[in-house]
């Protein structure tokens, strides 16, 4: 028998008079996204002018009719202008003048009402989470539109709807949009919003870094899309040199956007690590941490350690293109292998940055909808940490055929196959959790089950790729395409959708429409599998990646895949309709804890109070004690005064508080 705690009622916060709720100026006079745009445009022109001044008379600028220095400096100053216009540097300027910087407004009862706060540089992690949610949905849909264009072109091997260089532009935009921006698709919306709530904290450790991490993403998005105006980039999302040095101006946008997103990931990871270590409520031992928080913790380490290598590689790529350094040009003493190793040293942890948060979300969902504790909590944690650590030791499996020294091949085959052991723990935990459970097939649970189905296929195909002889056939072909779409889209995106259906009632108090949700799930699951399963065959039959034409006997299979892909796009459209209509028109109210979940975030009001917790709670039990007779509630939300007392510093006030 589960003991339910009553969700707290939201109490009115102290709000000042005035239309903006703070008694201050109206939104158009305060700093926000609109002033950011003005700053960005001004910065772009300034940087472009400076670049022309510095590099306009390079001989190659005259021959190639492009000044990469101007473009890169334009982007750099545009980003600085964007951030300055948003007000990111305001507190820094105050500090430099020796003035005290104000506390987060929500702790002073000065939280904004209305929509304007979502377009502003705010320090409330819940607002940042919602900003991430809408941002990530936008980026995902944009990437998806590019995917539709790819499949349209691949309908016929001989009739070409778009030119070959435009096809490469579309392929690169789709891949980069997805791999670059989706790294934060779970960590952003759900990690930032629910992370502190799950550990019983009123705040994150570095709210300004966290908000900065978000506001860099629209800049990266726009810069990546601006490549289209320059003719795109021809390298796909991997940006291999020396083709990248040879490419026209769109390539600068790729390197710059990727580096920018990398910085965003580093900051977000940094903030999450410190928050989880330092801001857990009393009683929140490591063994009581929800699995989602463990996944965020692991992923944050991956981000902090692996992404700087990418930023370095992007920076070197840019200097190769602008100042003609020769890091990656073989004929001048550089090495094309250097770029591949740098990129994949980041690239492999990157795919685990994408996959691990999916594991975390799914673990939360299955526990609630099986009404059972997670089977093997320690095994699950070991799985996540094992995957995280091992992910740094496998990157050369992307380079098995590349011509690097072959003596390390058996070693990397071993490490890559070893990584399937901790990944298997996730399945062990799921299988154990389902045994003797009481399974409810709610929509989040359906997505969780689809996750296991898809990730099993994706994971096993990964084992095929890790085997060097088999990899000789499969590397660089559509087999690889099928493998990573199964693990990343079939895994992460399905988990993201599950998370949206699961957590939206807590974020907004609104349930997504049940019927549309089920239609969305079933169409997405079926069409996802009909789209990507045949790609395994296509790859084995000799179709390389990123090609606009292929052998004629593969046309039927490609047409099947394209039609399925259009239908899959339709199912995502159903999701979009459900999302938008439920949020704006239908607004089906949800109870405070519709899933009767035990974890801490569900014990709060809907939406949670501005300062998260009136009093720092004391954690009494783990969040997975379903079915345990006489289980304690997960936390005491109103501990008597003096319990916490002098041992803990007050949460409000001061810079580090």
């Amino acid at each position, binding site marked *: *028998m589960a003991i339910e705690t009553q969700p707290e009622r939201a109490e009115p916060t102290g709000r000042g008079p005035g239309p903006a709720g703070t008694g201050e100026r109206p939104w158009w006079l305060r700093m926000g996204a609109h002033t950011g745009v003005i700053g960005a445009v001004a910065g772009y022109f300034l940087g472009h002018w400076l670049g022309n001044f510095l590099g306009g008379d390079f001989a*190659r600028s005259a*021959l190639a009719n492009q000044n990469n220095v101007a473009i890169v400096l334009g982007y750099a100053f545009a980003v600085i202008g964007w951030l300055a216009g948003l007000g990111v540097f305001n507190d820094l300027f105050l500090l430099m003048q020796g003035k005290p910087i104000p506390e987060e407004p929500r702790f002073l009862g000065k939280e904004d009402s209305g929509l304007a706060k979502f377009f502003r540089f705010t320090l409330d992690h819940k607002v940042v989470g919602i900003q991430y949610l809408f941002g990530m949905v936008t980026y995902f849909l944009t990437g998806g539109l590019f995917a539709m264009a790819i499949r349209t072109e691949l309908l016929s091997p001989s009739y070409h709807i778009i030119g*070959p*260089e435009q096809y*490469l532009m579309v392929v690169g935009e789709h891949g980069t949009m997805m791999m670059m921006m989706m790294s934060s698709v779970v960590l952003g919306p759900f990690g930032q919003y629910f992370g502190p709530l799950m550990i019983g904290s009123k705040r994150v450790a570095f709210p300004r870094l966290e908000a900065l991490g978000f506001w860099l993403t629209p800049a990266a998005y726009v810069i990546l899309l601006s490549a289209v105006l320059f003719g795109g980039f021809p390298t796909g999302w*991997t940006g291999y*040199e*020396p*083709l990248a040095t*040879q490419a026209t101006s769109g390539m600068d946008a790729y390197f710059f956007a990727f580096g920018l997103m990398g910085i965003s990931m580093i900051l977000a990871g940094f903030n999450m690590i410190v928050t989880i270590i330092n801001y857990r409520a009393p009683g929140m031992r490591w063994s009581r941490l929800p699995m989602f928080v463990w996944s965020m913790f692991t992923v944050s380490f991956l981000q902090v350690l692996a992404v700087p290598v990418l930023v370095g590689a992007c920076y070197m790529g840019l200097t190769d293109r602008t100042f003609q350094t020769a890091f990656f040009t*073989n*004929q001048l003493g550089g090495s*094309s*292998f250097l770029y591949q190793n740098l990129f994949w040293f980041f690239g492999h942890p990157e795919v685990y940055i994408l996959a691990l948060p999916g594991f975390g979300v799914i673990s939360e969902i299955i526990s609630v909808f*099986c*009404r*059972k*504790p997670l089977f*093997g*909590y320690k095994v699950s944690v070991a799985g996540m940490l094992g995957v995280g650590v091992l992910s740094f030791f496998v990157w050369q499996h992307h380079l098995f*055929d590349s*011509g*690097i020294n*072959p003596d390390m*091949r*058996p070693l990397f*085959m071993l490490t890559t196959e*070893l990584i*399937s*052991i901790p990944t298997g*723990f996730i399945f062990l935990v799921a*299988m154990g959790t*389902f*045994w003797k*459970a*009481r*399974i*409810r*097939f709610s929509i989040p649970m359906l997505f969780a*089950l689809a996750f296991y*189905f898809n990730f*099993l296929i994706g994971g*096993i195909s990964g084992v*095929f790729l890790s*085997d*060097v*002889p*088999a990899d000789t*056939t499969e*590397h*660089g*072909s559509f087999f690889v395409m099928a493998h990573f779409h199964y693990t990343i889209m079939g895994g992460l995106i399905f988990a993201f959708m599950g998370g949206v259906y699961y957590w939206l009632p807590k974020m907004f108090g609104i349930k997504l429409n049940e019927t549309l949700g089920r239609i969305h799930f079933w169409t997405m699951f079926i069409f996802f599998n009909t789209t990507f399963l045949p790609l395994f065959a296509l790859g*084995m039959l*000799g179709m390389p990646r*990123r090609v*606009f034409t292929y052998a004629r006997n593969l046309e039927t299979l490609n047409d099947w895949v394209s039609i399925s892909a259009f239908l899959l796009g339709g199912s995502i459209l159903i999701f979009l309709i459900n999302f938008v209509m439920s949020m704006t028109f239908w607004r089906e109210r949800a109870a405070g804890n519709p899933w009767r979940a035990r974890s801490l975030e569900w014990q709060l009001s809907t939406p949670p109070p501005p300062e998260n917790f009136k009093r720092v709670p004391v954690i009494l039990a783990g969040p997975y004690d*379903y*079915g345990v*007779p006489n289980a304690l509630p997960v936390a005491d939300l109103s501990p008597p005064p003096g319990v916490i007392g002098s041992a803990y510093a007050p949460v409000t006030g001061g810079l580090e508080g």
Partner: protein
Amino acid sequence: MSSAEIPAPDRQQAAEHDSRRTWWLIAAWLALSLAAGLVIWFVWYPHLPPGDMTSSARHQQFDIAVLAISAAPVILGVFLYFGYVLVVFRARPGDDSDGTPIFGNVKVQATWIIGTSAIVLWLFVFGTVELIVPAGAGAGEGASPIWKLPGAKTASWTPGADDMLQVQVIGQQWAWTYRYPQFGGMESTVLDLPVNTPITFHVTSLDVIHSFWAYLLGVKADANPLVDNVAYTMARQTGPFTVRCNELCGIWHGAMTSAGNVMSQTTFKLWATAVQAREKADGVLAALPAYALTYDPTVIPQLGKDLVNVAGITGAPGYYYGPGNPVTP
């Protein structure tokens, strides 16, 4: 109704019922795995890509079949289990209770860890053996290959003897050419190969990264500028094949294909000597650079005097055209 509330004799009956069901599940799993293994081995294996045209392709085909047989029990096991639990343990309508609180089971966890580790170790050993035995399994091994095919490296190639045929694959944007050093360094746009001969491919590039992939040949080796990437195979059947570029190299990457043929040894020797003779007569052989394992196109020692003296050109500008180059405006 949690297990704590079931009366004792019913609980024992339920436990026996559970273990009977578990044994049935395991039996079904074993039977299905066996069936899947047999189907994979006898029905699918003969038709698996990359086929059996060459030694490396055959070994890859065998390797993929064994991987599939090893993976089938895992996939079947997980699917069967999920199918079972989703039916048996679903919440009946109106049932609001919790499941049985099982926090872990050391025996189950240990069995799982040992089992998965055993499978992984088996795959590693098998994969390494399959990598070494077919001389690198057709994968490009770089400039210092470790696993080589046996065969005499001779200056000219004779059919019938166990001579290794050397073929250099040159990738350039966006066409493949092939040089045969044992035939005077003659170059061709068609890859013709003799059957039942050990073949060494030396794959290199003149500009960006390409990748030489003929899937029926079971060979894949990246072409990097100034890098010699060696791959081995031996063709066992005659027939045509297509060479595709497997690493994105610019606008025509998708169309960078080339035709190839495996033919009998005598036919091959006739073809190669004929091309060599024709290119010699046309002056093409003299115009080509000396055969080398890599080429730096920025340096062309053969440039005629008029180019150097009159036009001031010192080499095909492999890098950015220097400002002093009067030819390109």
